[in-house]
């Protein structure tokens, strides 16, 4: 009897905890409200099954606890009941799967007007690159990376010349404009994750992976690495600042392009050689 009561309190406690928990989603700041909705649906259906199964179990404990001389029912099978349960479960599962797949379909199909951002990860940090006025990112290669070419842009690729380089772990985004995050890594796996945006994807050395979202709330957010990447994993943070269009353009003006960087580097080298000559 006591056992039945305790099990009942555990179930009740779980439900109450879920209702009153102070720990829940961070306020969403992107278009992926549909993910939250799917989770809520799963909570209703799954939580319902959990409570129903456990309460049935508790009922059995109360009602059928051992009594000397009572005989249990002898009933090896009940085909009808088993069939009903199978179909009901299948239906429930389908009801969860369908919205899940629909949202995934949106997740893997990037809108055409999405702004591409090259997110480059290493142990342990981030930097970002935006396409210049041509709207195209230049191609890159890991072996090209050096002090003069921090992103490893292929020098013969003219698309790369006007790329905007943000050598900082904080990136600015335009509010209400979809972004396509293009992830690459120069060493191990990483994952560029902002809890408020819900979305994430691993950065894998050797390939470029992607995902997209549309920030819809102005503000500052923290970037976390969400794929274990060695001993500095927990400290691999970054930042995102979502801004209005005007603020964003102002910020963008102040950033350096690849050709500007090359010019700057050349000047420095020239000065150095002059110094040596003197």
């Amino acid at each position, binding site marked *: 009897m006591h056992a039945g009561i305790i099990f009942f309190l555990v179930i009740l406690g779980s439900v109450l905890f879920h209702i009153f928990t102070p*720990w829940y989603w961070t306020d969403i700041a992107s278009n992926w409200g549909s993910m939250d909705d799917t989770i809520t649906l799963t909570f209703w259906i799954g939580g319902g099954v959990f409570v129903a199964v456990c309460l049935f179990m508790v009922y059995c404990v109360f009602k059928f606890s051992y009594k000397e001389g*009572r005989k*249990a029912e002898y009933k090896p099978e009940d085909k009808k009941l088993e069939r009903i349960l199978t179909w009901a479960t299948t239906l429930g599962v389908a009801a969860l*799967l369908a919205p899940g797949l629909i949202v995934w379909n949106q997740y*893997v199909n990037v809108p055409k007007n999405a702004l591409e951002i090259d997110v480059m990860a290493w142990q342990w940090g981030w930097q970002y690159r935006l396409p210049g006025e041509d709207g195209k990112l230049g191609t890159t290669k890991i*072996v090209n990376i050096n002090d003069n070419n921090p992103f490893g842009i292929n020098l013969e690729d003219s698309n790369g010349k006007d790329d905007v380089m943000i050598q900082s772990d904080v990136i600015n985004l335009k509010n209400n404009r979809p972004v396509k995050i293009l992830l690459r890594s120069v060493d*191990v796996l990483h994952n560029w994750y902002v*809890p408020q945006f819900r979305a994430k994807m691993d950065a894998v050395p050797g390939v470029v992976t992607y995902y997209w979202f549309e920030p819809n709330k102005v503000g500052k957010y923290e970037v976390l690495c969400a794929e274990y990447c060695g001993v500095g994993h*927990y400290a691999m943070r970054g930042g995102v600042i979502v801004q209005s269009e005007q603020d964003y353009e102002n910020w963008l003006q102040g950033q350096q392009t690849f050709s500007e960087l090359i010019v700057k580097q050349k000047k420095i080298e020239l000065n150095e050689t002059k110094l040596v000559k003197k």
Partner: protein
Amino acid sequence: MSEDFKDSKAIQAQSSETISSGAGSSSPDLDYVRPAEVGDQDLYHGHSFITKWVFCQDAKVIGVQYFCLATFTGIIGLILSWLMRLQLGYPEAAGFMTAEHYYQFVTMHGMIMVVYFLTALFLGGFGNYLIPLMVGARDMVFPYLNMVSFWMFFVAVGVLLASFFVPGGPTGSGWTLYPPQAILEGTPGSGMGIILMCVSLILFVAGFTMGGLNYLITVLQARTRGMTLMRMPLTVWGIFTATVLAMLAFPALLVGSLMMMLDKLLGTSFFMPTILKAGEVLEYGGGSPILFQHLFWFFGHPEVYIVALPAFGIISDLISVHSRKNIFGYRMMVWAIVIIGALSFFVWAHHMYVSGMNPWFGFFFATTTLIIAVPTAMKVYNWILTLWRGNIRMNTVMLWCLGFIVTFVNGGITGIFLGNVSVDVPLSDTYFVIAHFHMVMGIAPLMVIMGAVYHWFPLVTGKFLSEKLGKWHFWLTFLGAYSIYFPMHYLGFIGVPRRYFEMYDSPYMTSAVGMNEFISTAAFIVGAAQFILIYNIIKSLKIGKAAGKNPWQANSLEWLTPTVPPEHGNWGDRLPVVHRWAYDYSVPGAKEDFITQTTPPSEVTDSKVEKT
């Protein structure tokens, strides 16, 4: 309530035929069982201490050896989890711990618990002890190989633990061992640590294959007369199917480990693309880190079921015995085990939705993953329907069973969150995942192990475990573990990522500090509660109540040996002959509420037993 269910309506039977008293059927044909096709097995009987207890070829002793060694490594895993929780809950008290240590503990805890504790315990421990007894064999079919299997496991554990003492310490690459970080500087133990881990896994797989072949062939070839496949206890079905999975899945882990060792030692590039490290381009190129993930999870997902299926089987038997009722829907239970086993090879990439594999795979793997929920749910329904109208003994064994149902359903439901591809996106790599898999493949199987220990301890030792201590052990473990993992899901909702040595100042994480302290405290208590079991075992061995023969009044063969505990060879002069399934409890018309598998029909002619 004094209701009696024997008068309930006629039942859709296992088969159309019902043996009843009315037919005047005392003809000798009634008890006919097909004669054996092969002769009795010759066994090697040990004579010295070494051959009897150390290099022993008796599956029962090997089972106990597996059990003890797995428990020993499990305790190491437990201590590592304490250290991790100390860091997460009370970082100021864990000043001695660096991030390197933390990641090494995380890794070793995970690998130990999944492979060297749960797998070894269920298949090596319970498999060895129970399979020959439950199918009515004298021993495993290859006793010598079986002995070697255990000692390979012993060496594998030795190599694994040796990695604590090599320069650089054990690997800290996470139990998934993902390259490239696993073998690069920047991850603790990327030198000797990862090599020893791979060697240990290879040894484990080799040793396990020896044991696994034994289990399979014993079940297929050495069942006694009358023990048809559809009369086997579900425990045997679970272990058997899990072993088939292991035989097919472990090779993927083996080659994964081998290829990674080659990458590390010989400079091949199976998993290593071009890598820039500390400003220098390494001498790798062209490999695929995702290939390793495919290999790992092609092993890793069936591995979940390698642990779960024996647990499913054992729990079915425990619930049935202690509810004094046949397991509901036996045939569906068998097919569910087989179908889950088969499907488990088509779901592995649900661990990789955000790994950077081709995103279109998500559709396929989400669908297969949610399909597997259907047979799993059927099993849950059948467990609770077995309780329904039973005569439930509320003893310690049953408590563990009920605890299993709660934790397993909870963990199964959160599995539907994570399996449903787009729901997984915000939750993957967060504490939600940790809570999910600990609930479903940590706590739930642990409940089964404990239930099984309290259930079969009288068989192995002839003594009962103390019920009083058992109940303390159960409630501390169940309530404690539930309060560790249930709230932990909500850390995942906040977005707290896994494998973080320190959370520090993120605003939405600082709100979780209180919860982390609570979880850690609960973890210390649950861990300590496990030592109640060890005390209980030692105490009961000394002064426990004698159990006698078949103390639970069970039907299956392991309780029907001529001596208790069973001797080497199990059955004395004559092998048992089986006349029915293992679940004839509370048969209407029968004198007792159980009819053992060896009871011939002519002895229970007045009962309305369904023919199985």
